[in-house]
């Protein structure tokens, strides 16, 4: 059985930056997965991301991205795309550190073989607990991308007959149910 982490990254207090944790919680509410799959709302991790991804077969991270595309665009990145960055000089040593994390787990030979970052182009990062309309509308597409990656990895999952409580406690109103096509 594959050990897979599906992790939502971002700050739920800053508008579209909360889309990662939002999707992570929706997945738990609407789907059941193989035992080896862990769904996590990771918040805004720094180097503790190393512990989260060490020794996994695959990771799927969901994060907002700043990119020159229409808000709500869903873009997929593999390891080489992410590694085009150089780690930066750390002024504030607690920087969010996806590149450093991946480099570290490679050095310690505990890197996941499959890495997928699902990026959702955000538009508003002002303080507030709700997603912009464009980002909210992109959620089914992002979930479809997660499903496609799980299919590719040979990991099984199914929709719950009856969704459980999503645990998205920070937005009012609560999120609408997923369309049946998702």
């Amino acid at each position, binding site marked *: 059985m594959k050990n897979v982490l599906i992790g939502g990254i971002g700050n739920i207090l800053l508008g579209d930056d909360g889309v990662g944790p939002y999707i992570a919680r929706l997945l738990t509410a609407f789907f059941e997965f193989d035992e080896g799959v862990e769904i996590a709302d990771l918040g805004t991790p720094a180097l503790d991301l190393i512990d989260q991804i060490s020794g996994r077969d695959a990771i799927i991270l969901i994060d907002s*991205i700043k*990119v020159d595309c229409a808000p709500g665009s869903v873009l997929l990145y593999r390891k080489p795309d992410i590694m085009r960055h150089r780690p930066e*000089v750390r002024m504030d*040593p607690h*920087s969010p550190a996806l590149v*450093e994390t991946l*480099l570290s787990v490679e050095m*310690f030979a505990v890197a996941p073989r499959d890495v997928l970052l699902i990026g959702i182009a955000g538009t508003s990062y002002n303080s507030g607990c709700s997603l912009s309309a464009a980002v909210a509308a992109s959620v089914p597409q992002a979930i479809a991308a997660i499903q496609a990656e799980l299919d590719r990895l040979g990991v099984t999952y199914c929709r719950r007959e009856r969704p459980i409580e999503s645990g998205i406690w920070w937005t009012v109103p609560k999120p609408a149910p997923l369309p049946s096509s998702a």
Partner: protein
Amino acid sequence: MAKRITIDPITRIEGHLRIDVEVDNNAVNNAWASCTMWRGIETILRGRDPRDAWMFTQRFCGVCTTVHAMASVRAVEDALNLEVPLNAQYIRNLILIAHALHDHIVHFYQLSALDWVDILQIPKADPEKTAKLAESLSPWTRNSREEFTAAQNKVKAVAASGQLGIFMNGYWGHPAMRLSPEVNLLAFTHYVQALEYQRKALQVVGMLGSKTPHIQNLTVGGVANAIDLDSPSALGMDRLEAIHVLLNDVVRFVNEVYFIDVCAVAAMYPEWFKIGSGVRNYLAVPDLPLDTKASAYDLPGGYITNGNLGGVHAFKTASDKEFRESVSEDVTHAYYRGDKPLHPWVGETDPAFTGWDGEQKYSWVKAPRFQGQPMQVGPLAQVLIGYAQGHPLTRKYADLALSKVSAVAGVHATPDMLHSTLGRHAARAIRAAMLAELAQKHWQLLVDNIAKGDFTVHNQPVFNGEVEGVGTHEAPRGTLSHWVVVKDAKIKNYQAVVPSTWNASPRDRSGAHGPYEAALLRTPLARPEEPLEVLRTVHSFDPCMACACHAFDPSGRQIAKVKVL
């Protein structure tokens, strides 16, 4: 002719620390610390249920989640004058201790050791000699030739690949790097091991808080842990024993590795006990309450002005009247409207961005002041304040550290040397050793209290009218305070004055520098275009201000990491 150096890591999307220094004759003659983003997260809390505030505040920061949760419930409890049951105090204390140990270990090894340790010297080291050296310093059983060889091979492999991977950004071979190949290897081997032990500390947070990075077990008035000695799903003896085993491993790592390494590395850079002092006003709040009313504590608090240890003032409680009445925030040089310093309960946050101007406004960080003075916060403040009060646990580990530094450096190390860049690292290690001892104490206190048949974990909050409170926590980076005004069971105002705000503070109306700024003045730079010395001092504070927003920038463009003008 003075040169301006800006260190501004621009790959970060939003909000981070920027440092500008003016360099003349290879020394810093002026400095500005600024934060590049406004968050204003506190406004989200207005109108919400005060019992839920902690769930929001623990999202302020991705690294210091737990500390903001704790300060928040304490603020509401202070406003309500609500006692917290003993079990809840001990469980909270254990979470805070475990989180702090994780944080201090990661700070030294993963986040700042490579300011002092030159990775590229490691292939030249002799693992056998390294093992002999290590044996002379510590009884740690993992100081074997095999461990050192394995760590050395990792570095050799990375170096041989032609790409430095995780190490591509260091100032390797910089003239300010001075450790022998063997000491470099020793420290790097512990860098690798540190990852394991910080994880064990976090596991303790998760076992008590039910999850990391965001704990779930707090409530205003206590905790939500069900205590049942025989149930595997509740907090029972099995889980308590597992926590004990993890804590003991972490305690050994702190005493036999971290504490020793800090003393040894510090002893080899003795000039850094004379650099980086800056603001010598120190502030710390008491923490680790020992009773339900929080009237006695295991960590002392108070304040020191002008480095005068003999004149230390003690705070009796974590919401001491003098503390409550003495904090204000000044926005003279911050991007906000307002013309006078305001107390956090009546604090305003009215943003007005005008662009970086060192003479006028240059930061999104407000300037917190205590009795009108800038204050340095963090482990150094806590250790000096405890030391000055004759606090036995502080003295025990501070004296031990000073004697170890003296022995290795062949000098007589005194508490006065702690006002420095290395003093901040030493104080963090001293505090970690104190917390390690207290971890075992509070575990025992919890077990003994449960054994008496006390299973209480929560007191019910009752809201009436308008009340105000302050919740403090002496966090890994120093004094954290959350200030809340509650009206008719809803939050009317909320302000968080976080440790990095004290330390990264800009100048105030009188022109007084904040602690980072003051600490950088007169720092010598061997190569201004590679300002390693600036990073050493800034990192010694353990800054944390950028974690709030995290959006990945996929463009991968090369960064202008250091600009020399």
